[in-house]
């Protein structure tokens, strides 16, 4: 590793934008790990397609963060030259793919949130974030429909598929609370109408999740303790491994292009 990490001036708007960009990049990368390995060709294409949507969202958000920061960083530097403690994504999204049931559960929990989130963000007073939201909202709707259908198929499928998807729901549940958390740096943006208050999305999110879990014959976990830390750079061990793969080229051959 020879390329050094960049420094980032995390003003509230830069930090806010980077957090959403990191969400999209990390989940998109996780989905790309299935490429060539999915249980069937249609799902191989589906996950690559959704990963591409997320990568596109990440690029728009990183480019905007770079513009707001105005320190000469760009989308590639944000993606390739920040270390694990500088990443601001939700812990849920860096969790390993596991089996297909686990990947779909992670996708479902996030899509049920992002669909609501981007629709609400279309009303942001920040014109760029509102424009990115208007595109992302349509894409999220497809991601939600796709993963909801798989929850039902797996949950109400065979004993084995039910067992696996219930285990994934139980394991990933504690990571869902972070989606609705707000810290001081975001509070000011919410008050200014630039960001939306995610706490408002919790009830409709729970309604969607409960409805789909019911239809899937799955049990909603009762534990209310939630794991947090990703938004502040405190990650699970999994993110470092992911970044070592994602960043290896630019770290080893700084500025490499093709």
């Amino acid at each position, binding site marked *: 590793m020879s390329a050094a990490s960049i420094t980032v001036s995390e003003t509230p708007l830069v930090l806010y934008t980077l957090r959403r960009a990191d969400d999209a990049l990390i989940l998109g990368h996780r989905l790309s790990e299935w490429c060539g390995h999915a249980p069937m060709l*249609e*799902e191989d*294409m*589906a996950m*690559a*397609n*959704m990963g*591409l*949507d*997320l*990568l*596109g*969202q990440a*690029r*728009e958000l990183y480019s905007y963060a770079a513009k707001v920061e105005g320190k000469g960083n760009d989308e590639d530097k944000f993606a390739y030259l920040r270390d694990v403690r500088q990443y601001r994504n939700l812990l849920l999204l860096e969790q390993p793919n596991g089996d297909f049931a686990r990947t779909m559960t992670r996708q479902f929990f996030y899509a049920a949130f992002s669909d609501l989130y981007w629709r609400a963000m279309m009303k942001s007073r920040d*014109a*760029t974030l*509102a*424009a*990115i939201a*208007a*595109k*992302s*909202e*349509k*894409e999220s*709707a*497809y991601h939600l*429909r*796709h993963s909801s259908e798989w929850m039902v198929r797996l949950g109400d499928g065979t004993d084995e598929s039910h067992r696996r998807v219930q285990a994934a729901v139980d394991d990933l549940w504690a990571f869902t609370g972070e989606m609705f958390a707000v810290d001081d740096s975001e509070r000011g943006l919410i008050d200014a109408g630039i960001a939306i208050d995610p706490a408002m999305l919790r009830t409709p999110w729970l309604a969607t999740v409960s409805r789909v879990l019911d239809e899937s014959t799955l049990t909603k976990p009762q534990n209310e303790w939630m794991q947090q830390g990703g938004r502040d750079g405190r990650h699970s061990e999994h993110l470092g491994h992911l970044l070592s793969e994602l960043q290896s080229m630019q770290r080893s051959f700084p500025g490499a292009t093709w």
Partner: protein
Amino acid sequence: MVTIAANDSDLRQRAWDAAAQVVDPEIPVLTIADLGVLRDVAVRDGRIEVAITPTYSGCPAMNMIAVEIEVALERAGFRNSKVRTVLSPAWTTDWMSEDGRRKLKDYGIAPPQAGGGRRALFGEQQVACPQCGSTETEVLSEFGSTSCKALWRCRSCREPFDYFKCH
């Protein structure tokens, strides 16, 4: 559309016509004008500035389309043209021209349903087979060979086909 000086209107029209000929590299029967990807052509200080909008956030064809526009303008005699991407208003399949829908169907891709906004996503969809016209069709995969398409199959003629998704 940007208001431009009257003496620039011929230039602008010639530039529009040149840019409008560029085709989607993944669906070469459709031009970027048919798709609604070409949003604006303006003349600024004698230079042509073209605005395009992506179909999907991650559409990999956008870079290629931008290069093709510059080449098309160069061939039409416009030097140093500039292509910029605009995100707002967000592209929708409702912008696809009638001509574009017909060309898509003739090419074997079921065109998106007009007015099929986001809500149509979660309702019943009836997609006609582009080969035999039957509406006895079923979805095989929500995600197809490109971001903008889903894979369907006709139960009447048994042919699989691409469906351009509503967006």
